């Protein structure tokens, strides 16, 4: 007897073969036996995965931890997967119309009837246990139905034309991506205006806090984009510079009482120095080796922060970090110190804690836009083009007389200083920092934003940051399934656009007397 995993591996064989045949001969007799086997295997895999992830659940109950079971959810998930797979196979076998109807029906059913409401009573009758259906199953049923219906609709529409027409449509998707990207020229300023008016559109603390978080990550990703997106060096330790910036500000502020506005540039300088120091040993490395060393550097910084207790406070971190004042003019506290002016008195308005939140939001927004401005400008300078050449082809880059060592160092230094600026903002916003905040996962998230956005695309990064940082918050209502939904979203995006959301690359130069109308590179360069 073979295990289920073996069966799953065996099933990998016939399935792709059926795929090839299915697209060629649209109408033919359906092999029901193969269909049921395939759907059964899918259901089996879902069972294997969900029995531990969904079926058993450790929860806090009074008096300690308890293991709760949700086997009904597992059964429901298996049934859903089975039905869904049958639908997918039927589409492949040239029967999209019934699947389309079925998918829509399943989605509608999921919307109005509690999911798999039939299973509940049966399950209760069989086991005597009580079953409360979870929201997630409903979401899966509705979303799955819609996706399968869309797929069926797409196949129906696509199989009308000839192969040539199909090719044209595939190209059309790429062109659409390029158009979207070109449209960011107009969307860009609109987005900036929207970002600036956001605190007034949503005068609410939670929203502005979330927006601040998103913009912080946008800024970090724009900073990392210089190394990863432009110079093509995979840096897995970017959080190190973030940490250097944060600790620089925190220490300068708590030890020497320097104000935020003096420390901000200093934090940038310190982080840039850290970038320079890291840059030297990794200069000769490429690809995977480079990634590993930067990963190590990120961890080293964190471990130093954790262990150098006299300076950094070790795991306790640094607390009581000064909040920024309104450019040294006024303070955001209700009753400021003797010689200071309170912001609300200064403007003659009622005191409200949200003033500081809004101010912090604007602060990070301006910092992020500054990073964006510098990145866009620098891409058109010789150094920016040299970075791109380095990303495209290391050897050719050298044969063109480019000093690889220097341009790598410059990329590192600039990128690190942006990370440092973001770090000092983080410290002043939180008022408390500890090594906990600078784990590897932060580097991974920032890198994921850059890659997801489409390496090197400024607008793509904004979209990706909103998705990566905003979505987990939006999905918060799904409770324990939050990260599952988030993961599913990520997988969907990478299947749909494997090179990132906006991966089209605009050329930086075109001849005025060119044969084709150039996409006015000069004008774009002038845009901040």
């Amino acid at each position, binding site marked *: 007897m073979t295990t289920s995993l073996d069966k799953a591996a065996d099933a990998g064989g016939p399935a792709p073969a059926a795929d090839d045949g299915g697209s060629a001969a649209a109408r033919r007799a359906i092999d029901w036996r193969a269909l049921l086997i395939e759907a059964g295997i899918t259901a089996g895999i879902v069972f294997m995965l969900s029995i531990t992830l969904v079926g058993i659940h450790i929860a806090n109950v009074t008096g300690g931890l308890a293991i709760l079971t949700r086997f009904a959810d597992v059964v429901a998930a298996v049934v859903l997967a089975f039905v869904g797979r049958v639908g997918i196979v039927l589409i492949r076998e040239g029967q999209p119309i019934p699947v389309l109807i079925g998918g829509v029906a399943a989605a509608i059913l999921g919307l109005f009837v509690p999911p798999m409401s039939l299973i509940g009573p049966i399950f209760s009758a069989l086991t005597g246990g009580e079953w409360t259906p979870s929201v997630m199953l409903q979401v899966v049923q509705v979303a799955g139905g819609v996706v399968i219906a869309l797929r069926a609709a797409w196949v129906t529409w696509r199989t009308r034309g000839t192969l040539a027409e199909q090719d044209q449509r595939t190209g059309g998707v790429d062109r659409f991506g390029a158009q979207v990207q070109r449209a960011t020229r107009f969307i860009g300023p609109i987005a900036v205006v929207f970002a600036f008016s956001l605190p007034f559109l949503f005068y609410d603390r939670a929203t502005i806090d979330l927006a601040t978080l998103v913009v912080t990550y946008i800024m970090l990703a724009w900073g990392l984009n210089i190394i990863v997106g432009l110079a093509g060096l995979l840096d897995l330790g970017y959080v190190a510079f973030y940490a250097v910036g944060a600790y620089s500000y925190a220490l300068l502020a708590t030890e020497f009482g320097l104000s935020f506005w003096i420390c901000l540039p200093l934090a940038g300088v310190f982080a840039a120095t850290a970038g320079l120091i890291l840059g030297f040993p990794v200069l000769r490395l490429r690809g995977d080796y480079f990634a590993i060393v930067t990963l190590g550097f990120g961890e080293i910084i964190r471990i130093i922060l954790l262990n150098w207790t006299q300076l950094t406070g070790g795991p306790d971190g640094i607390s009581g970090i000064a909040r920024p004042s309104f450019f040294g003019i006024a303070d955001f506290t209700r009753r400021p110190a003797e010689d200071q002016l309170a912001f609300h008195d200064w403007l003659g308005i009622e005191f409200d804690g949200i003033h500081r939140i809004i101010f912090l939001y604007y602060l990070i927004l301006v910092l992020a836009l500054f990073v964006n401005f510098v990145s866009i400008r620098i891409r058109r300078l*010789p150094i920016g*083009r*040299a970075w*791109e*050449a380095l990303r*495209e*082809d290391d*050897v*050719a880059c*050298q*044969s*063109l*007389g*480019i*000093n*690889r060592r220097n341009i790598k160092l410059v990329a590192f230094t600039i990128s690190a200083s942006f990370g440092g600026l973001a770090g000092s903002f983080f410290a002043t916003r939180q008022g408390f920092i500890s090594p906990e905040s600078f784990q590897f996962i932060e580097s991974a998230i920032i890198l994921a934003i850059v890659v997801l956005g489409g390496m090197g695309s400024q607008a793509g990064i904004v979209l990706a940051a909103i998705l990566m940082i905003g979505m987990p918050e939006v999905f918060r209502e799904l409770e324990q399934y939050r990260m599952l939904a988030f993961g599913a979203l990520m997988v969907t995006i990478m299947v749909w656009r494997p090179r990132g959301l906006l991966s089209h*690359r605009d*050329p*930086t*130069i*075109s*001849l005025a007397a*060119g*044969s*084709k109308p*150039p996409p006015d590179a000069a004008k774009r360069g002038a845009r901040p």
Partner: protein
Amino acid sequence: MRGSDAALLSVSGVHTFYGSIEALKGVSLQVEAGEIVTLIGANGAGKSTLLMTICGDPRAARGTVRFDGRDITRRSTYEIMRSGIAQSPEGRRIFPRMTVLENLQMGALTADPAHLEEDLERAFALFPRLKERQHQRGGTLSGGEQQMLAIGRALMSRPRLLLLDEPSLGLAPLIVRQIFEVIGEINRTQGMTVFLVEQNAYHALKLAHRGYVMVTGEVTLTGTGAELLANKEVQAAYLEGGS
């Protein structure tokens, strides 16, 4: 060896190692200003290694490389490439995501931007195909067009010596002929000195003024292109089938 102090490029007694493997075993050759000189040899003879050694990557362990009378053996690659030598590397190595125009511009990165327009016009005059495709991305060009782009890009830095590493690699015979015609034209009209490393011995020797034959890290034969073409050993080793 004749006129070694007048030579634009002079390689003397160069040994190059990859780890403990001696890839070049004391190679000497000269390229005079205005010449096309070719280096032919079988796969693995060390032709590309010599070209890369001239560029300083890897550096010669012993011996000297002189360009325009100056010793460049110990210089770093980017300095060498800025001193008037340009290279079209093996396998073309154009920038695939950049447009043709950007690729050409990259070649001029270390040159005076004042004559960018003029140099672009000259590159487009040599390769009209590149002008037609100037907004197309490098990666979408055909092999022959990519080779044209690689040569055009190398010329953008206004070099005095053009190093070409196997420009015929993987190209159809008709395209190879076109490429070699253009190399001859660059030499005639611009007086460009060309050092050409080739496996396609027939075309290379027909084009070149002089040639060297390399076998396992050593230069074994030298002579004018016509002499080498007529040489029995060369014919037997590199010219089977007549062309």
